């Protein structure tokens, strides 16, 4: 079994950022670490697809599409 | 792998006995028309080509722009080579890359998809090398060894 070595990162967040993190953590029943880990996965996933030329859209209830210029 | 959630070995033994005759395969729906999983001879080797370029470049601590300038090729082309297995590089660029990596041009042509390779052993070596394509920022010792080993193999083909 090979457990990948883990590294520690110390993160300094503003009050507002911390509030957002707390709120997401509570809403999604995830630890703050798990929220950030998931955010990193999502960031990379979106980034990779955009690199390939794909576009990210949000579709409203009325089926209007708006491109999300996120990253 | 350690996890506090892992059940004990009796649990596993019992569960395994209980599910011994069950089918487990999980994945996409059956496709009768799917082309046969490509044998090593058919799979594109361009991932190995892209990886060879990327690792060789990083081993010399060059950015894509610096390498492009050094080889007098387009930055875009190098980026496509490193990131897109579907991309087909120009022969002139391939030959400059072969010189840069100091490996036989004919072999790099095969990796780059500009020449056909029917050599199963060559293809297997290239695919094993390609399977190491983790995108890490710094060239780890493992990557260095992987690169050295593959380059040695290519040079031995001469």
């Amino acid at each position, binding site marked *: 079994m090979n457990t990948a070595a883990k590294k520690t990162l110390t993160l300094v967040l503003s009050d507002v950022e911390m509030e957002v993190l707390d709120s997401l953590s509570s809403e999604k029943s995830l630890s703050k670490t798990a929220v950030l880990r998931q955010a*990193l996965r999502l960031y990379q996933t979106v980034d990779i697809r955009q690199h390939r030329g794909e576009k990210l859209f949000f579709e409203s209830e009325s089926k209007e599409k708006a491109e999300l210029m996120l990253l | 792998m350690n996890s506090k959630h892992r059940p004990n070995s009796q649990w596993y033994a019992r569960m395994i006995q209980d599910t011994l005759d069950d089918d*487990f395969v999980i994945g996409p729906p059956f496709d009768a028309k799917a082309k046969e999983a490509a044998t090593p001879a058919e799979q594109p080797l361009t991932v190995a080509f892209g990886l060879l370029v990327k690792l060789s470049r990083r081993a010399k601590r060059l950015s894509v722009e610096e390498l492009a300038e050094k080889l007098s090729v387009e930055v875009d082309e190098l980026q496509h080579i490193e990131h897109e297995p579907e991309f087909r590089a120009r022969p002139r660029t391939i030959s400059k890359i072969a010189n840069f990596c100091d490996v036989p041009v004919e072999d790099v042509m095969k990796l780059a998809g500009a020449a056909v390779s029917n050599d199963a052993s060559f293809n297997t070596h290239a695919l094993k090398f390609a399977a190491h394509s983790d995108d890490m920022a710094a060239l780890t010792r493992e990557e260095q060894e992987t690169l050295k080993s593959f380059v040695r193999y290519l040079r031995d083909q001469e």
Partner: protein
Amino acid sequence: MLALFNRHTQQMETADLLDRIEAEDVSSFEQRWLPPMQAKREELRQAGKLTLEEATRWNVADAHWEWPAKVRNRAGQLQWASYALRCGGDTQGLLFLNMVYKCRHPEQLKKHMVYVDLVSTAPWNRPRLVPNPMYGGIGTVLVTEAIIRSLDEGFEGRVGLHSLPGAESLYRQKFKMDCLGPDSAYGNLLYFEMTPQQAAALLSSTGL
């Protein structure tokens, strides 16, 4: 310490679970898994019998899956977690998990989960494909690992998967997952989800 059941010796045998599919496992797949699976698939095709039913009967419905390509394309992507199960000196099982997936079950709608994307076992372990299959338990160990990973990630054991035909009773009865019906977006395969309560009950069970 993980183990698989060796059907020949009728004993449990120590197995190694790697937290990433490695080059060695890809080689094993290409050189030792593929040839017998492709041979059977080709035999069915020549006989005009390459249908879902026949492929399932012979346990080769996955013979066309491109594990090497997936390993290459997904390497370095945090969305995908892969595992290789080795025993007796060879790769016996392979697993891909999707870590960016949300639940559909009404009780846990849109919560994070671990989705089991691909599970496969070496052809010499497959009943119906070979007369004397070697190891048993690969699928159990790998699907259980998905549940454990879900717990480790803070997803409370939520797991989702689509079942190939023939495996439904396994997930329903043995793993005690909820079936949410056929998924028209995925070849009408049955979609299953496990809730935190089911995960806790399963992993702490002492007998059926």
